[in-house]
């Protein structure tokens, strides 16, 4: 499921020339050429049809591709509801067996919390978790993340050529979110499998076997997390889960005066959301950052000699990676978007991959350029009430990785004749493998 796209990524000019040959006739989100390199397709959509109709998983949808239009969708949750997600499904038989399996194994019901809830209910969840994710709350993780990054680098054992995602960014992202969620080291292998399975069918087709394995994983994850929740309830610690368990709204906002604490299914859903929203996305942003630094030695140099350049490199990497490639919305009432009439119940894919490359608002958007002004005006973190809650956590992790690597490595480069490969996924797309040549200090 990997594809070499280096020819498109290497030279910006190539991207533009490719764009001219792109045809949107018979477009499909599952087209291998699109999945290999979606950016020229999105450029074409922005140019000719910024609200682009297509069909996926048997459902007609509209892809919204420009910064301006994505912004207006994200800022209007009353018209564009989050109460919808489109996942590719297995056969009806497998779906029924999955349902039975979840019940048999004692799985908890799935409920809407942060990502798929609308106002006014969304605000309750948002407020109950807000304090756990402030920039201040993140500073306490810096030390642990630094130790983790150093440990992973030690683990390379002096290797000079590595597949960097499996060697460094995957375990860093996974173990960082494991730390935040209170997962024990002894369960890290299970946790890695659960993490993979939480997003099954999102942005890619799914086989019946994979689907059933994923259902089992989800229940295992729920039961394990339920144990953590029960433990923190009995023995509070200074950690995220204890904060979530004890989180209360203030009296004025609470309906029956008890602060509306999260119920067990809500707590579980929240932890699963944090895992899927934080683990994979941060890994994608981290991997893309080192990919870009390997491709642009001048930025590696700058990062090394001038720590003050690092926040800009991190921010530009997030824009460039657009780790949440797209998110779903559902139209609640007849409306208009980009001059087009859109009836109620229309399904919409907000394309972060596209709007973060919108040449109308971002100059030379296809280039990696940490010197650009308006660095943080991009939409990669989202916008409005669903804007990424974990962005301080993500920035902290990326900063630690950049600090540790520039401190201990003198150079990173793509080995001659090799290149990064990308996942074929229209929602969760990122680097699948990143061969790196590394030089130690």
């Amino acid at each position: 499921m990997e594809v070499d796209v280096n020819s498109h990524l290497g030279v910006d000019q190539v991207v533009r020339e490719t764009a001219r040959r792109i045809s949107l006739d018979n477009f499909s989100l599952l087209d291998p050429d699109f999945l290999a390199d979606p950016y020229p397709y999105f450029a074409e959509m922005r140019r000719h049809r910024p609200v682009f109709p297509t069909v996926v998983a048997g459902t007609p949808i509209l892809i919204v591709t420009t910064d301006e239009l994505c912004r207006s969708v994200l800022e209007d949750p009353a018209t564009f509801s989050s109460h919808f997600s489109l996942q590719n499904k297995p056969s009806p038989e497998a779906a029924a067996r999955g349902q039975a399996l979840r019940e048999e194994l004692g799985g908890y019901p799935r409920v809407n919390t942060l990502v798929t809830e609308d106002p006014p209910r969304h605000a309750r969840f948002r407020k109950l978790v807000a304090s756990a994710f402030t920039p201040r709350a993140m500073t306490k993780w810096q030390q642990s993340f630094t130790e983790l990054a150093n440990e992973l680098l030690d683990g390379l054992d002096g290797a000079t050529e590595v597949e960097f995602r499996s060697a460094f960014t995957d375990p860093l992202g996974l173990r960082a979110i494991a730390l935040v969620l209170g997962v024990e080291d002894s369960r890290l292998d299970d946790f890695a499998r659960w993490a993979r399975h939480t997003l099954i069918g999102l942005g890619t087709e799914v086989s019946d076997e994979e689907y059933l394995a994923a259902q089992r994983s989800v229940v295992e994850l729920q039961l394990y997390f339920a144990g953590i929740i029960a433990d923190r309830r009995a023995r509070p610690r200074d950690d995220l889960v204890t904060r979530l368990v004890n989180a209360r709204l203030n009296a004025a906002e609470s309906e029956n005066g008890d602060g509306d604490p999260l119920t067990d299914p809500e707590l579980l859903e929240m932890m699963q959301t944090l895992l899927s929203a934080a683990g994979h996305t941060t890994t994608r942003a981290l991997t893309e950052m080192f990919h870009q630094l390997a491709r642009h030695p001048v930025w590696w140099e700058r990062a090394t000699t001038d720590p003050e350049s690092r926040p800009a490199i991190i921010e530009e990497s997030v824009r460039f990676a657009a780790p949440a490639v797209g998110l779903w919305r559902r139209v609640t009432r007849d409306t208009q978007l980009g001059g087009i009439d859109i009836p109620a119940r229309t399904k919409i894919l907000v394309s972060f991959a596209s709007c973060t490359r919108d040449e109308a608002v971002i100059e030379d958007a296809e280039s990696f350029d940490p010197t650009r002004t308006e660095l943080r005006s991009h939409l990669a973190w989202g916008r409005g009430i669903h804007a990424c809650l974990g962005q301080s956590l993500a920035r902290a992790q990326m900063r630690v990785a950049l600090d540790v690597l520039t401190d201990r490595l003198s150079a990173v480069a793509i080995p001659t004749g090799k290149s990064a490969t990308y996942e074929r996924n229209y929602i969760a797309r990122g680097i699948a493998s990143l061969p790196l040549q590394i030089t130690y200090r």
Partner: protein
Amino acid sequence: VKIVLDYDKCSGNGICESIAPEYYHVADDGDLVLLKEQVSDQDIGAIRRTVAECPTGALTLAPQ
């Protein structure tokens, strides 16, 4: 100028606090607390950034 916070829009993301912790603080109940309303001349650049970068558009500036 002074900072005006729309409590109904704020989602407590804390981007403002990351830029200007001496002005903004997300409390344990998830509510944003304005530590100072009046913006001093030397801080105006940072405060304008908090207004621009607030993901929910909850911050505005007003003449005193």
